[in-house]
């Protein structure tokens, strides 16, 4: 479904994507690990078109989307959440979702109303529906990121660190939500430092470091690989 072929991106002298190759099959759930600044978010930006690749090729459902504008990619079915939330602060939460519903999923306003209502319900944001997004707390903002991405009815959902800072119960709930999305057939790529949340959902893992893919495979194997132990030492005590 998604394929990255030799994608490169550099900022000045800093290589943030170094000959990155990746394949994600339809219906798959992929986890992405890597230390801070490894280029994980950048990979997402390349896939969604927020950042243009210096070279290489990005395919989505067989179509070359490397040079496509972000809004077109969204309408093809690429949905994403931002690591640093970008809420539309002067709109209510509900309206934030409507943007995705109307423009991303290309629904009529009426259709979008009910679709977004459902997403609000699923993500537990219903009580906040009429609150201005600018006044949400961080956790709510992250949830809004997820909800907004869902509102575009994505075929491929890119999630960037949405579990950080959740309590245990909340995290379990989040895992449940994502599992459900996955079960409905949505392909998922998830960047997450909270490894156990990730492990509960994904089918396979990749590890990035310095813009390169340093490990890839079945979650257990990757977690126990030497590369991960060496590079990704974050919280393994």
């Amino acid at each position, binding site marked *: 479904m998604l394929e990255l072929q030799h994608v490169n991106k550099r900022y000045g002298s800093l290589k943030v994507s170094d000959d990155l190759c990746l394949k994600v099959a339809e219906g798959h759930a992929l986890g992405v690990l890597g230390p801070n*600044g490894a280029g994980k978010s950048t990979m997402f930006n390349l896939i969604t078109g927020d950042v243009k690749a210096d070279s290489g090729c990005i395919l989505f459902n067989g179509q070359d989307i490397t040079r496509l504008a972000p809004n077109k990619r969204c309408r093809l079915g690429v949905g994403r959440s931002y690591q640093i939330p970008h809420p539309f602060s002067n709109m209510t939460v509900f309206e934030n979702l409507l943007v995705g519903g109307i423009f991303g999923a290309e629904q009529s306003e009426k259709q979008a109303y009910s679709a977004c209502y459902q997403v609000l319900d699923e993500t537990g944001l219903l009580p906040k529906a009429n609150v201005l997004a600018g006044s949400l*707390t961080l*956790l709510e903002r992250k949830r809004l990121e997820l909800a907004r991405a869902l509102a575009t009815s994505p075929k491929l959902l890119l999630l960037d660190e949405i579990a*950080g800072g959740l309590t245990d119960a909340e995290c379990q709930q989040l895992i449940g939500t994502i599992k459900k999305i996955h079960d409905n057939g949505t392909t998922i790529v998830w960047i997450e430092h*909270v490894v156990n949340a990730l492990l509960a959902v994904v089918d396979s893992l990749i590890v990035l470091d310095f813009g390169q893919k340093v490990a890839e495979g079945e979650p257990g194997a990757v977690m126990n690989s030497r590369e991960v132990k060496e590079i990704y030492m*974050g919280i393994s*005590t």
Partner: protein
Amino acid sequence: MSNHVLNQPILYTQKLTAFYGDFQALFGIEFHLNIGETVAIIGSNGAGKTTFLRSITGLLCNEPSSVKFSGQPIGASSPDEIVKLGIAMVPEGRQLFPSLSVEENLRMGSLSGRSGQWDLRNIYELFPVLKERRHHGSMDLSGGQQQMVAIGRALMANPSILLCDEISLGLAPIIIKDIYRALPAICSEGVTVVVVEQDIRQAMAVSDRVYCFQEGRISLEGRPDELTTEAITHAYFGLEDAVS
């Protein structure tokens, strides 16, 4: 860790809060720092660690008495005044000046006008590689070298308190070791150090005391040897166990 820790707070905060617009990032932080000790602050992304350091250095405005340095209220002072009092910061993401050379970046640090043992020569002794590359643009350096410049720049202010925000961020483990190897040298010059670190192990290894932040509040405080892994992971993530 260091031998010259005196149990006498040089800096403390009281009911410290911080806002970004309507968004509250810190909720009544009570924190203290003793002369000569090394304190680590840990916590997940967005917990408010950086915000806390920014509040101390004056980049975020507060109540005057919410931060006290040597008994003097500095919560509402401006960053340049606070540097002149002797609190310097290595900011998150290094934040070097791209259009300045390495040496110019270091010289920027000395503009606060505090005298002391740190000068260009000492910095170059501490990080010899910088001397070789002093006329290069700061963006030509590797991440680790850039981090050295950032630390050197802060030291050039001859601070009595050095705040380091995620100095290992985005660096290879080898380089992280290099950087942390420099810390004791710095402490032995009588500088009080605060490190913000996501790498808990690293943080525990270098510090006398640890604070853990969670969602804008201090969720745990103590000496590294007193803290259990369980307590930390709980405080860190709000989870029972991070990795099985």
